[in-house]
Every structure is written in structure tokens, then in C-alpha cells.
């Protein structure tokens, strides 16, 4: 059996500063196989987004971050990569989609210029005209009707939905094997968000891309993911196939999250009573979802 696209084992993260040490992740384990869509669900501050940033190698640039545990990308331990080698993976083998598409695009450059930069990560000496043609094709794949107009526009001239499609096109431009989506489209209208998620789902299925989908919104996760990890205060508390987990949520925190769904209108999670012992119960793993063995 080939190694999973992404394998995280016992990942720890702490921030050390003058004022002491803050533990953020207490040893989480996640795996994603090729073409699999896996969601990491939890409220804000639970450690979802930092996980994504560690995988990309962005948090390693922060000097106060103390990171422990194993992250293997396509069977390769990224801690053993030089920063340069890790850098080479970003934007090529792994890419990311952000929460607010409009503010994630540079306001003073045209879409075409930003797209060219993305494509240059895959083909460093790509010609300008070639890059623009390729970008137009990719935008067309994302059901954008007039790619030429979009390419010559600045982000502020486009709607949030269009910008989100641009982001998706950029993220998939270099055929990455792993796509990390951090609360994609949360800043958008619910209907627009639903459309773009559907589009994203089709595209990753077509390209057989593995996805780490980070969200606080269980409703969205149910539509999108094959498998779900529930994260709470830096610990994975429950893990299972989407259907199993939704049919039979076993961890009290998961149940609390589920109960909250109907009330989520603006996307927020209602206050959950502060950590009682039951919330800190050990991880519950649903049938057939054990973490793979790691070769020593």
C-alpha cells in the first residue's frame, strides 16, 4: 500500500515567549490518502488553522513556535527537508485556499500578474503569453464565462464569488497532490459558498487531489468530506467516516457541535460550556478508521 499523501502523527505545537509557554496542539494524528477529502472540524482557536500552516511550513518561520511530532508528505518526513526543499513543495505539490478570497488576492496587481506568479512556481520559465493562455483555460475550468476580462481585472473589480473561483483555479493550477482549504468562502454569501464548494468538489474529484478541509461548519463538512476529524482544544476527539460520524456522534463535544448546527446562521458556534472532564475524554475512533502504521 502506498503511503498516504499526508500523514500527521502526534503533532505538538507550543508557542514560547517571555510570558511562558502556551500549548496549542497536544499531539494530533491525521492521515489523508490520495484523492481523499478529509475535514478537520472545530471551533476557532481549536488548532485547525495552525495545523494547516505547519503542513505548509509557514509556522516554522515563526521563531517562537515549538513544533514536535511527525509530518510526512507522500511518505517523506518534512522535518528532514531543508527549508529550500520544503519551499519547493509549496505552490506546486501542495497549495491552499483561504477564507476571504478578496483580501487574499493582492489589491494592486491584476489577476493575470498574480496568476503568472503562481504558474511560474510550476514552470519557472513560462512565457507570458503561454501563462496567460493557461490561466484563461484554468479559469474557464472553474466555470468563469469570460476569463479574459477576469484576467485583466483587479480583485476589487470582481465579486467575492468570482475571486473565490480565481483562488480555486490558482490552487489547482500546478496540479498539487494536496489542497488545504482553510474555511473556504466563509466570508461569502451562503449560496455563493455552496456553489463554489460544489465546483471545488468536482475539480478535486477530477484531478484526484487530496484535500484537507478545515471548517467550523458541520453542515458544509457533511456535503464535502469523506472522513471527518473533530478537533477540540488541540486534541482530536473523534474520527470517522462522514456518514458514520453524523449518524452516531459519540463524543460529547461532537454531539454539542451537532446540536449547534440548526442554530448556525451566521456561521458561528454558540458558547459551549467550558471544558468539563467529559470533553477531554480520549479520542473516539469509528470503525475502519484507524491511523495507518508508520514505518519506523
Amino acid at each position: 500500500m502506498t503511503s498516504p499523501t499526508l500523514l500527521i502523527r502526534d503533532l505538538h505545537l507550543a508557542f514560547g515567549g517571555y510570558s511562558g509557554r502556551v500549548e496549542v496542539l497536544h499531539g494530533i494524528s491525521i492521515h489523508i490518502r490520495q484523492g481523499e477529502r478529509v475535514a478537520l472540524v472545530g471551533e476557532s482557536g481549536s488548532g485547525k488553522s495552525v495545523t494547516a500552516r505547519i503542513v505548509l511550513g509557514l509556522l516554522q518561520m515563526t521563531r517562537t513556535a515549538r513544533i514536535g511530532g511527525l509530518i510526512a508528505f507522500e511518505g517523506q518526513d518534512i522535518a528532514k527537508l531543508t527549508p529550500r526543499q520544503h519551499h519547493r513543495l509549496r505552490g506546486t505539490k501542495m497549495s491552499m485556499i483561504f477564507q476571504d478570497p478578496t483580501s487574499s488576492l493582492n489589491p494592486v496587481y491584476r489577476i493575470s500578474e498574480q496568476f503568472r506568479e503562481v504558474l511560474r512556481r510550476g514552470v519557472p520559465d513560462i512565457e507570458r503569453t503561454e501563462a496567460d493562455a493557461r490561466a484563461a483555460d484554468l479559469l474557464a475550468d472553474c466555470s468563469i464565462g469570460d476569463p479574459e476580462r477576469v484576467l485583466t481585472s483587479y480583485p476589487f473589480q470582481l465579486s467575492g464569488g468570482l475571486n473565490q473561483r480565481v483562488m480555486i483555479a490558482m490552487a489547482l493550477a500546478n496540479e498539487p497532490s494536496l489542497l488545504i482549504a482553510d474555511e473556504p468562502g466563509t466570508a461569502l454569501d451562503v449560496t455563493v459558498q455552496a456553489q463554489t464548494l460544489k465546483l471545488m468538489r468536482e475539480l478535486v474529484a477530477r484531478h484526484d487531489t487530496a484535500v484537507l478541509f478545515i471548517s467550523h461548519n458541520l453542515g458544509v463538512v457533511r456535503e464535502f468530506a469523506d472522513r471527518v476529524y473533530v478537533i477540540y482544544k488541540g486534541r482530536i476527539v473523534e474520527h470517522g467516516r462522514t456518514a458514520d460520524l453524523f449518524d452516531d456522534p459519540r463524543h460529547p463535544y461532537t454531539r454539542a457541535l451537532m446540536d449547534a448546527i440548526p442554530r448556525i446562521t451566521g456561521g458561528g458556534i454558540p458558547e459551549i460550556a467550558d471544558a468539563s472532564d467529559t470533553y477531554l475524554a480520549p479520542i473516539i475512533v469509528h470503525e475502519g478508521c484507524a491511523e495507518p502504521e508508520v514505518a519506523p
Partner: protein
Amino acid sequence: MSPVVRLVMKRLGVSLIVLVGVSMLIFTIARVIPGDPARIALGPNATAEQVAALRERLHLDEALPVQYGHFIADLAQGDLGVSLYTNRPVTRDIAQFLPATLELIFFAGTMMILIGLPLGVLSARYRDTWVDGTIRVVSLLGVSAPSFVWAVILMLLFAFFLPIFPIAGRLADSFTVPAVTGFLLVDTLLAGNVRAFGNAAWHIVLPAFALALSGIGQAARLTRANMIDTYNKPFIEMARSYGFPERRIANRYAFRPSMIPSLTIIGLDFAAMLGNAFLVEAVFAWPGLSRYGVAVILRKDLNAIVGTVLVISAMFLIVNIIVDLLIAFINPRIRLSQRTS
């Protein structure tokens, strides 16, 4: 009409209003202060008739608004009156002294941009390292002394102790260059005299650097602050997560947006140079507006004071319009929609 043209027209209009305001302000200050300008101009030995005649000629006995009316009517014909100090038209005096000052400011402004901005970018990119620390201290020192102190220190170090640069003046006496534009660096080239050009350039380095130092510090500090602001924006994280090279992120992706708020202030620093040039010129015996300005101020030479201040303010407003154009150039929101933020 393109948005940019409209922007310029609008700015020109506002500038004109401000300029009228400046003329009123300085005109009022000049007229309400105690002391009889006519008496001062003619000296203590003049007869009462002579003073009265001069007062008549300068309209000093009429009501302030009437005086201002005369002034504006003359100004419309490009006439700023006669200097009581040099007995020549103020416009001619200014035309003679302004180019030397402008040359100095232009040089200093170029240094401010070419040194200050890269220092700020480096400082932000290597935030909290020794690079950043050094640049911050140096730029704060630059801001912390008036330009005449820098002028004196630089002169002492690089003209006296290490005689690298000339001590004073614009050009060695051995060169004669026909004055065409008044800008020596242009005139020497027009005359085809490369050695004179080199000599003039050599003369301008120290005074320009002394004048630029506080601007360099200011520009570096400002660029650093705005770059760090920009570094916290989502689009920079996006650029990083796509593995854009760090240097490219600093020099393009973070730099350009961060210049939008910086430029206005840099324009103001340019304006400060118009004033500080007086200090540097005094130290380096630079034959610019300074000596003239100080002389006419000490002699209460009304026409010359009003004229000098007006010209300097006009320069400042021109710089501001250029800055606005630059902002429009790098900020597509303004360029494309004419919505001034």
C-alpha cells in the same frame, strides 16, 4: 476624460484655492506687524517725504483688502513687486536663486527615496533581527538632528578631517559655465563640459546628503511600519503559502501596497526639505534662496518675503500633485474609479 486627468484637474483646483489662502495669510502677517516697511527700506536718513512717497508707491496707506487687491492684480501679470533690498523685481531675484535650491532639493529627494525606501524594506523583511535594529537606530538618529547639525558634522568629517569633498560652494572657481537653466548640472552638460559637471556633482554630494538625512530616516521608518502592516495582510500569507520567493514578496507584493499610505508623508518630507534647505545652504555657502530669504526677512522686505513664501508653497503644492499622481498610479482603485480614499 480619464479618471487620472480628472484627478489632476481637481487637485489643481484645490491647490489654487490653497495658494490664494497662503497668499492671504502671509500677506496679512506681513502687513499687520509693527514697524514701517518703507522706513526700514529707506534707512534712518531718509526724509519724511521720501518715506511717504514710498508708502504711496507700495499702497501702504490703503485698507488691507485694497492692498491685497493690488497685489493679486499684479500677481496675475506675473509681477510680485520690487524687492526693497535688491531694488530688483522679486521674480527676477527668485529666478536667480531658486535653481540652486531646487537642484539641491532634487538631489536630496532622490537620495531620500533611493536610500530610505530600501532601508525600510530591509528593516521590515528582517524584522527583529540585528539588521532591523541597526536600521531603526540609524534612521531615528537621522530624524533626530536638524539638518544644519548634520551639515556641520558631515563637513567636519568629510571635508576637513578627511578632505574628500569640497568645503563650500557649487563649483570650483576655475570653471566658467554659461548660465542657461541655472541648474549647474544641466548647464555644464549643455556646455559640453564634462569636468565641470563632475566638479558640480562633487560639490552637491555633501550638502544634499546633509539635507536628505532626516528624510531618509523618516522614509525608512515609515516604509518599515507600513510594510509590517502589509505583511499581516492575508494576501501576503497567500503569497507565502504558494511559495513565492521571500525577496519578491518583500520587493513587490508587500512593498507596492505599503507605498500607498507612505507616499503622502514622503511628499510632506519633501516639503520640509524646502525649508531645511535654508539651513544646509547657510552651512555650505550654497548660493540658493537661503541667503536671499534670510536677508529679506531680516530687512522686513515685504514684497520679497511674500514672493518667496508664495513660490515655495507653490513648489510644495506641485510636489503634492505629483505625489497624488504616483498614488493613483500604484493604487488601481483610484486610477480606475476616481474614488479618493
